[in-house]
Every structure is written in C-alpha cells, then in structure tokens.
C-alpha cells in the first residue's frame, strides 16, 4: 500500500422495505483520485454516498475513515426555501465561521467572485452548483463528495465544471467521489470508474472499463465511441459555456 486510504467501505449492505438496495459493496477512496460512481437510476448511487457520509445507516458492513478526515459534500439538491432571504456571501459565511479561510477566496477559486452580493434565490442552477462548490472549498477538504454536480447544465457548462473539479483536485490533493450520469464527461475527467447496480458490477480505469462485459451489458455498445474521447482544454469557458477570450 503506497498511499493510505481516506475512506474504506467494506461489505456494505442496505435493504429498503425488504428490497436490497446495496449488496456487499466495497469501495476505497485515495487522496488525489477522482472516482466516478455511475449506474442506472435506482442503482443505489445516492444511498451509497449517504452511507459513506454517515447520513444513513447500513444494515451491515464497515466504514473506516481516516481519523479527523475533513469531508465536504455537495448534495443532489439544495432545497432552498424562497422564504429565507440570504445572500451568497452570507450563505458561505455560515460555514466559514468554523474555518479560517476567507469567503472571498473560496468565491474566487470557484470562479464566481461577481456573485458575492447576489441573493441565493436569484442565481441560476449552474451558479448554485458553483456556490456549493465554494462552500466545499471553505473546508479545505481532504475528501470531496459530489452527487450529480452537473445536473441541469448544458454540455459546455459541464465542461467548465469538470475542469474546475480537476483543478480543485490538483490544488488540494483531495480525493473526489462523484456521482454522475453523463458517461461522456466521466470518461474525460476520471481516474477510476465504479459501476454500481446494487453491487459493484465493475471498476477500473475509464479506458479499460469500457471493454468490460458488465459495463457493455449495462450501457450498450455505443459507449465505446465515447471512451476514445479525451478533452484537451485549449481555451476557457465562462459559466454559460461561452469561450472566453483574453
């Protein structure tokens, strides 16, 4: 073992009303690695994430975390009530009270310095995801857990987001666990893919996993074309995906 695991889950089982949701799931997350968790709807992706975070109890199995591990979490949905008036800055400051990183710096790193004084209810879905990412960064995370961070974004917006996530990984050296729908982007930005359907069907490097028979069975043949895709960033996008000229 070269690097110690940030988090190791072994033989996780969860049933819901007698129906198995997770069966004997094993997962290791190492520092500096981006892991994509993919699988069809109802495969148990979000349940697994919740169990790993300690938000939900597993029926059996073991989870070992590095002691004192700083985890940051971006949930699938932030149900922000319209009746609660709050600005982006204040939203982040709530969390920042526990850390010593300035809010302005986190906003800068997430590429949304301009949104500082905007009310949370007025920003777009893509901007909200970046605000949530900024909130994660306030914690100087060792492990970043993202549940479908790209939802509701167009392809270009997704590109910009994944670029940002890779950037964060490089800068913080943190492990990243990301639930994703979009295979295209998974293949471009990931070190390891884990296919889940109640149990772990297959796992491996994005290039090799597309040859795996289980993977082909789950996602069909056309995916092979996508596996060849490698994104080279020779330009910058803004939040809306437009190319930015310097």
């Amino acid at each position: 073992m070269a690097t110690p695991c940030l988090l190791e889950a072994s033989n996780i089982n969860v049933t819901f009303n007698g129906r198995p949701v997770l069966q004997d799931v094993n997962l290791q997350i190492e520092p500096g690695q981006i892991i994509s968790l993919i699988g069809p709807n109802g495969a148990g992706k979000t349940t697994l994430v919740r169990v790993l975070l300690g938000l939900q109890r597993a029926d059996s199995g073991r989870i070992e975390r590095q002691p004192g591990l700083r985890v940051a979490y971006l949930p699938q949905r932030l149900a922000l009530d319209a009746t609660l008036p709050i600005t982006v800055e204040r939203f982040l400051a709530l969390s920042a009270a526990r850390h010593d990183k300035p809010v302005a710096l986190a906003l800068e790193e997430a590429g949304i310095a301009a949104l500082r004084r905007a009310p949370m209810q007025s920003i777009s879905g893509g901007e909200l995801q970046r605000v949530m990412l900024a909130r994660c960064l306030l914690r100087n995370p060792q492990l970043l857990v993202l549940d479908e961070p790209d939802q509701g974004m167009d392809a270009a917006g997704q590109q910009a987001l994944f670029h940002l996530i890779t950037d964060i990984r490089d800068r913080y050296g943190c492990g990243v666990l990301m639930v994703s729908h979009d295979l295209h982007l998974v293949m471009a930005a990931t070190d390891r893919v884990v296919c889940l359907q109640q149990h772990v069907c297959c796992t491996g490097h994005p290039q090799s996993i597309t040859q795996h028979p289980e993977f082909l069975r789950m996602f069909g043949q056309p995916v092979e074309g996508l596996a060849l895709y490698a994104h080279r960033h020779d330009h910058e996008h803004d939040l809306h995906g437009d190319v930015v000229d310097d």
Partner: protein
Amino acid sequence: MIEWSMDSFIWRALLGGLGVALLAGPLGCFVVWQRMAYFGEVLSHSALLGVALGLVLGIHLTAGVAFVCVVMAILLMLMQNHVRMRRELPADTLLGVMSHVALAGGLAMLVLVEDVRFDLNAYLFGDVLAIGWIDLLWIFCAGMAVIGTLLFVWRQLLEITLSEEIAQVEGVPVKRIRLIYMLLMALVVAIAVKIVGVLLMASLLVIPAAVARRLARTPEQMAVLASLAGTLAVIAGLGASLQWNLPAGPAIVLAAAVMFVAVQFKPL
C-alpha cells in the same frame, strides 16, 4: 368606551403581549422557513391538555401547559425521525391528525375535570386582559431564557434550515439543535397561549414572519422585522379591543393580517 388611563390591567396586557410578540418573531421565522406551520398548531392545540393537567394537579396552569408542550415537542421529534423512514402517510396528514386529536382530547378532559374557576373561552381565544403579575414574571423569565438560547444556537439552526445534510456532514449536532429549537417553541407556545389562545397561537408565529419576508434581505433582518410586526399587531390589536370591545386575541391576529395584506403591495 373605556377611558384611556393608567389602569394597570391594560399595562399588564400590553407588556405581556409585547413580550410574547417579540419572542414569536424569530421563532416564527424558522416555522416559516422550515415549513413547520403544522408543528405550531400541534403544540398550541396540545396546550389545552396542559391546562387540564394543571387543573387536575392544582399547579399553575402555565406550568401544566409548558410541561405538556415540552412532552409533545419531544414526541414530535421522535415521530419526525420515524416518519422519514416510512412513507405511507405524508407528514402534514399525521400532524393534522395529532393537532386535532390534541384539541379534542383537551376539550374532553376539561369537561371531565370541570372546574368553576376555569373559563374555557379564555384559553381558546386568549384573554390578554386577565394577565396577572405572575404571568408577566413567567413571560419575562421564559423570554430571557429563549432569547439567550436562540442567540447561542442561531447560526447552527440557520445551517440546518438551509441544508440538514450538509450541516450534519460538516459536524453540526443536528439532533441536539433541533431538540433545543422544539423546546424553545414549546416554551413560547406555553407562555403565549394565555394571550392569543390555543386556536390563534399558530397565527402569531406565522403572520408576522410572513409580513417580514416581504421587507427583509437577511435572515436576521427578517427575525427582527417579524418581532416588530408582532409588537405593532399587539399594540393595534389591544387598542382596537379596548375601543370596540373586541376579544383581544382575534383583534391582534386581525391587526397582523392587515399588515400582511398591506406589505403585499410593496414591490419586491
């Protein structure tokens, strides 16, 4: 017509009403933010059970109400955790059942313990003019405790309101803070019920907060404005009650409702 004089019962009524409105402001904001209007109903309706208990045991009625409200708050907490696991009935249905069972149970019990000293209407609709010095002492002591505690947990409570899951992952003691909040609610309902009555208590939590939403740009502004709206409603309501001989509780709620309608005309 009542002479506007220094009659101390009017001043007691005003002091009590203002104290309760100040407390209901910030707590009411959380009721609105967390969509918990029904929790307020269950707590205030169960106050009637507390009154019955107080009569049976021969203790101060506010103590009886406070006790039952605290027990109810803890029950609601436990139920809330349980309901999340099983989903065959939505939470608002369950709370609707509880709130009216509590009301019916309280009414039935009060008939059984039948007591000549007791005026049921005063508890259903509030009797602000009957507030005594002991009631004021209750309001003052409980009020200080509630405000102090609320300031202490404010930030964490706000984090939980925004996202319970993120708060938990980031190490906020979610269950403890929630319990504290429920206990604060129970305490405020217990001291306020005598003033606006069990049937109108929830509106004192919700309406001032709804008024403040239109005017506030931060959570803290909204809390302070809700307190302010509540106190204005108490002053206007009491005035109207003395002037036109209206029952005080309904007059206060109607005054708040007038403000609510008025702020709807303010452009966002």
